[in-house]
C-alpha cells in the first residue's frame, strides 16, 4: 500500500508573533513545529505499515526550505520518503491555492492508495484543505476520522466522529481521510530511524518539476481569500486566585471558587 501523509509545518502557538503590517504570522524557522493533527494522521499511516510491512509511507509538506529540520522528525518516526514542495511563487497561498498546489504535486509524484491529512492546522484552522484536495484529485474522502484499521490491502475500516456519536465506515481505496487531533498517541522515534534522519535530505519539489500546474492559481494571486485584519483577541474578565496548598479548609475554598464559574 502506498500511503501519503500531508504534514504542515506551523508556528508553535506558544511562540507565535504577529505582523500587523503584513497581516501575517511571522514564520521564525526556529519556532516551527509539525502540525499536531498531521502527526496523528501519520501515526495511523505507520500503524498500517506495522500491519502490512511492504507498505511505503511518504509525507508531503509545502513551505520554505527552513521546514527541512522539522521534516527530519517525520523520518525519525519511520517515514520512508519525505517530500517538500518549496517555491517562492507559493508564498501567500490560501487554503484553496494550497489544495491546488498539493494536488498538482501528488499527481506528479504518482499513485497513492491512501492520502491522510490532519483535520486542521493550528495556524489556519480552516479545515478545508483535505476535502478540497480530494476534490482536485477526484477521489472519495471522509473527514473527522478518529480511528483507522486496515481490513485488507484494498479496504479500511474507519471511524468518524459526528458531534457526540461515532460512525463506522468500510471504505475502498483510494481514499483521502482527514484525522482529528489527539485521535491516537503518536509513537516515539526509534534510534535507527533517528540515525537515518541525521543524514537524510528530503526530496525538494519546485513548481517547475510539477506537471500541468497553472501558476496563476497559486500564491497571493491565485488565492481566493485575503486577510482584512489581524489582531490579537483580548481575554476579558479573567481573574486568577492563588491558594497555597495545604489544609482541608483551603481545598474547600478552591472548590467554592471553581463552583462559582460552573
Amino acid at each position, binding site marked *: 500500500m502506498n500511503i501519503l501523509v500531508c504534514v504542515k509545518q506551523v508556528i508553535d502557538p506558544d511562540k507565535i508573533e504577529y505582523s500587523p503590517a503584513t497581516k501575517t504570522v511571522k514564520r521564525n524557522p526556529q519556532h516551527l513545529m509539525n502540525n499536531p493533527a498531521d502527526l496523528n494522521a501519520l501515526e495511523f499511516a505507520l500503524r498500517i505499515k506495522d500491519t502490512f510491512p511492504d507498505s511505503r509511507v511518504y509525507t508531503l509538506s509545502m513551505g520554505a526550505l527552513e521546514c527541512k529540520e522539522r521534516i527530519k522528525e517525520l523520518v525519525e518516526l519511520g517515514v520512508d520518503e519525505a517530500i517538500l514542495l518549496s517555491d517562492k511563487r507559493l508564498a501567500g497561498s490560501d487554503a484553496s491555492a494550497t489544495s491546488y498546489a498539493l494536488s498538482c504535486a501528488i499527481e506528479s509524484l504518482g499513485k497513492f492508495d491512501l492520502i491522510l491529512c490532519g483535520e486542521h492546522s493550528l495556524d489556519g484552522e480552516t479545515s478545508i484543505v483535505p476535502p478540497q484536495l480530494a476534490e482536485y484529485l477526484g477521489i472519495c474522502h471522509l473527514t473527522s476520522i478518529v480511528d483507522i484499521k486496515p481490513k485488507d490491502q484494498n479496504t479500511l475500516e474507519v471511524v468518524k466522529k459526528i458531534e457526540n456519536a461515532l460512525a463506522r465506515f468500510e471504505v475502498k481505496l483510494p481514499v483521502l481521510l482527514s484525522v482529528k487531533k489527539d485521535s491516537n498517541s503518536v509513537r*516515539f522515534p*526509534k*534510534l*535507527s530511524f*533517528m540515525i537515518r534522519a*541525521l543524514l537524510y535530505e528530503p526530496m525538494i519539489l519546485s513548481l517547475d518539476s510539477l506537471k500541468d500546474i497553472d501558476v496563476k492559481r497559486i500564491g497571493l494571486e491565485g488565492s481566493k481569500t485575503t486577510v482584512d485584519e489581524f489582531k490579537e483577541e483580548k481575554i476579558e474578565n479573567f481573574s486568577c486566585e492563588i491558594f497555597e496548598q495545604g489544609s482541608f479548609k483551603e481545598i474547600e475554598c478552591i472548590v467554592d471558587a471553581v463552583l462559582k464559574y460552573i
Partner: protein
Amino acid sequence: MDYFLSEEQKVIKRLAKRISDEVISKVAGKYDKEGIFPRDILDLLAYTELTGVYIPKEYGGFGGGVMEMCLVVEELSRNCAGIAVSYAATALGAYPIMLYGTQEQKEKYLTKIAKGEAIAAFALTEADAGSDVSNIKTVAEKNGDFYILNGNKHWITNGGEADIYVVFAVTDKSKGPRGISAFIVEKGYEGFYFGKKEDKMGIRASSTTELVFENCKVPKENLLGREGTGFIIAMKTFDRTRPGVAAMAVGIAQGAYEHALKYAKERVQFGQPLSSFQAIQHMLADMYINIEAARALLYSTCKMIDSGAKDYTKESSACKVFASDVAMKVTIDAVQIMGGNGYVKDYPVEKMMRDAKVTQIFEGANQIQRNIIASEIVKEL
C-alpha cells in the same frame, strides 16, 4: 558545557531525555511510592532500540560502548533513578557475557538483551560477602552435563524480573578467589527460586530480591569463561559498569539541581525570589560546578574505556566515587533550598535524595573504591 559528543551520541541522549521527560517524569512518584517495576518503560526503551546501545552490531545492538550506555542511564536518572537502574542492571548482567561469553552464549543471550526481549541481572553479593567478594558461599559442583548450584544471593537488582542471571559460585574452595566461577542461569531453571523482596529507602521502582539455589541444574555450556575465572570476570565487569553508577549519580544530581533552580526562581521570600539571595546563589553555583566536574570525569572515563585502553580500574572507581558523592551533596542542597517543600513528597527532590544514597553504596561501596584507587596509584609509584 559542550562535551563534543558525536552526532549519534547526541541522538541517543536526546531520545533518552525525551522518554525521561515525557514518560518517566509522570510515573516516577507513583512507581516509587508503590514499588512498581517499570516493565512498561523497559518495553518503550526496547521499542526505541535504546536497550541495545552498548551491544555489538553482530548481536543486534547499536554497536556503542560504555559511553552510550551511560548517556541513557544519565538521562533516565534525571527523573527516576529507580527506573534507570532497572535498565542499567541489565547492562551489568550483559557485560560479563560480552566480555567472556562464547560465540554461542553471545548469540543466544545478547541478541535477546539487545532487542529488549530479555532482562538481565548480576548475582554476586551474599549475606556475608558484599565488599568481601572472595567470601561467597554459593557452591557449584560439576555433575555430568550440569553444574549443581546451592546457596543464596542477596540484594540482586532486577531479581525476580530478569530472565538471565550471571551467577557467581565457588567451584573449588581450596583456591580462594581463584576458585570462583561464573554461570549463566535462566529464570525457570529447576531449583532456582526468588526469595525476599527488599523494601528499600530509594530506587524503589527497581526490584531487589534474594535468589535461592537449591540443587539448581545449570547446563555445563552455561559456564562463563573457564572454571576459576569468576573473580576476574566480576572485577573486569565492574571496571566497565562503575561508570554506569556514576552516570546514574550525575543524572540524579542534574535532576535535583534543575528542580532547585526552578524553585529558587519562583519562590518569593522577603519580597524577592530565592534566587536573588547570595546564600542561595552560591549553593546553586556549587551544585553546577560539581555536576559538571562529575560529568566531565564520567565522560572522560567512558571515552578511555571505549578507546580500547587496557587498564582503567582507578579511573572507573574515581568517577563512581566522585559522582556519587556529588549526587548526595547536590540532592541534600536541593532539599535545603526548597525547605519544607523539599522535605515533603509533593516535589521530587526528596525522592532524589533517597535515590542518591545508594550510589555511594552499591557496585562497591565508596570506601572500597578508595581502597582500589589507592592500591592502583601506589602500584604506579
